């Protein structure tokens, strides 16, 4: 498939936003259950604002993918069948919850709603945080299922697609949380760095598994099944278009195998290896610089990873255009 830059930006930006929100709520849940001292609400409010900014930036990027962006509101109608429609509903809902969560911490209006027998005090922000967590995971699933549900694109049609979206979004979000904590809440940097490295490493395993799976896939369709003509040697003489068509442009990435191999290593090193090394190397003084650098390198690596994700999917309609490399 031809990777659309708007979709690459959408999936990576909202992934980082969702991951950042999950990181914020993780630290708040730890505090709720008295595993960590209560966090500074300025950090949670600032983090929510940053997460919201990422989500809205992703939403704006998605509009550039549309031919008729003014009709985008219609995309919420087919939630019964379309994962894209579900994503269109869940994304704004999640934005709203993140905004409310941030406002609660910014305003300090955070009444205690209940106290569990264990002594954990459940506040309003905990309720909205739990709701936001649910929506963040729902959004990850919706985004990934847009691709994973297409059964004749075997590179995408696997549960690994869903795991990758969750893990890679989570990894970049927790790395960003570490960078943010280095500026606003230095005593929690270690907490976020630990989580970020762990999620990045699990993400690396999951992504390598999907790369390995893709390399071993055997195409189910051939030119023979596409035409219904049983002959081992079929050569195309005319493709039905002189100057190319939508079919010759939309379904190929147009890059060489050499480029594809390089982008794979850029993605692996940029999205996983370097961020882990940078995060692991960060000390009390260097955390702000190293974690920030780790986030930006990881984000660029994820752009390459997402490009590869789209480029690797081989659409069966390409069988009708065997002349095009």
């Amino acid at each position, binding site marked *: 498939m031809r990777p659309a830059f708007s979709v690459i930006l959408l999936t990576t930006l909202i992934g980082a936003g969702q991951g950042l929100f999950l990181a914020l709520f993780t630290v708040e849940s730890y505090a709720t259950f008295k595993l960590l001292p209560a966090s500074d609400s300025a950090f949670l409010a600032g983090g929510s604002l940053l997460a919201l900014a990422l989500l809205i930036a992703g939403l704006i990027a998605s509009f550039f993918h549309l031919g008729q962006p003014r009709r985008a509101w219609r995309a919420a109608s087919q939630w019964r069948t379309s994962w894209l*429609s579900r994503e269109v509903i869940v994304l704004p809902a999640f934005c709203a919850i993140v905004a409310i969560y941030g406002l609660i911490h910014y305003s300090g209006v955070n009444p205690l709603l209940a106290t569990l027998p264990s002594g954990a005090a459940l506040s309003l922000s905990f309720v909205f945080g739990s709701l936001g967590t649910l929506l963040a995971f729902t959004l990850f699933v919706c985004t990934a299922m847009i691709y994973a549900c297409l059964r004749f694109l075997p590179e995408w049609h696997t549960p690994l697609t869903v795991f990758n979206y969750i893990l890679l979004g989570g990894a970049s979000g927790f790395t960003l949380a570490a960078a943010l904590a280095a500026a606003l809440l230095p005593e929690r940097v270690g907490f976020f760095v630990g989580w970020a490295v762990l999620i990045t490493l699990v993400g690396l395993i999951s992504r390598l598994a999907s790369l390995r799976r893709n390399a071993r896939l055997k195409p189910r369709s051939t030119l023979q*099944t596409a035409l219904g003509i049983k002959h081992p040697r079929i*050569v195309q003489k*005319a493709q*039905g278009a002189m*100057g190319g*068509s939508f079919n010759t442009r939309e379904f190929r990435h147009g890059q060489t195998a050499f480029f594809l191999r390089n982008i794979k290593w850029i993605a692996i090193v940029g999205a996983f290896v370097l961020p882990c090394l940078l995060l692991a190397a960060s000390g009390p003084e260097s955390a702000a610089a190293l974690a920030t650098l780790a986030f930006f390198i990881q984000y660029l690596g994820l752009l390459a990873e997402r490009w590869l994700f789209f480029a690797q999917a081989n659409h069966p309609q390409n069988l009708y255009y065997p002349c095009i490399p």
Partner: protein
Amino acid sequence: MTQLALVIDLNVCVGCSACVTSCKAWNTSGAAGPLADLNPYAAKPSGTFFNRVQTFEIGAYPATETVHFPKSCMHCEDPPCVPVCPTGASYKRQEDGIVLVDYDKCIGCKYCSWACPYGAREFDELGKVMKKCTLCVDRIYDKSLPENERKPSCVRACPTGARLFGDIHDPNSPVAQAIREQGGYALLPEWGAHPANHYLPRRKTAMHIHEDELERADNPLLIDSELPSPSLSEPSFDDVASW
């Protein structure tokens, strides 16, 4: 349940592209607005077509065969493009099985084209929406046309009659009979979309002549062989003498 569809006879198609041009002419002139036609007379012409004819060479010279292969929307019985549409712009009509796009609802996200294994949908760079074959839905029910003209434009244009149109669910329709009796098949059957359009394969009409047909084995009297030639003075009879 009616399922309108095209049946394309690859044995008859000569690859003239009359179906392509007549389709474009009809569908660019209708109420749905023009189909994009970018650089039509320049080096890289590119436009939106609902139907294209490709040409394939089967086999290696000298044992080659040329197959002209028209392809348009298959109007699948279980269309994978329809459930993925986020706006409901893509839909399958219950009454006749035609898969259509509502150009006023389409947001041009191209997701349906990713979900179509046949590459039957084309994004229109002019209208910024997804377009595809409508089976000339604005023709086939048009009561102002004479009844024999209520067919898709491509079917009417085909000079060799390679394109049949009808209800494949009606066992007595010419299309259903053609599929049944002439080995009609579907493209990419492995994906389970159950395309309604079918193709009739290339057929060879070969004549087999056996040895005993050249030299009659069942002729012990050798009636066909040369007859005796009696001298001119003797009487001659038909079938007994050679003159």
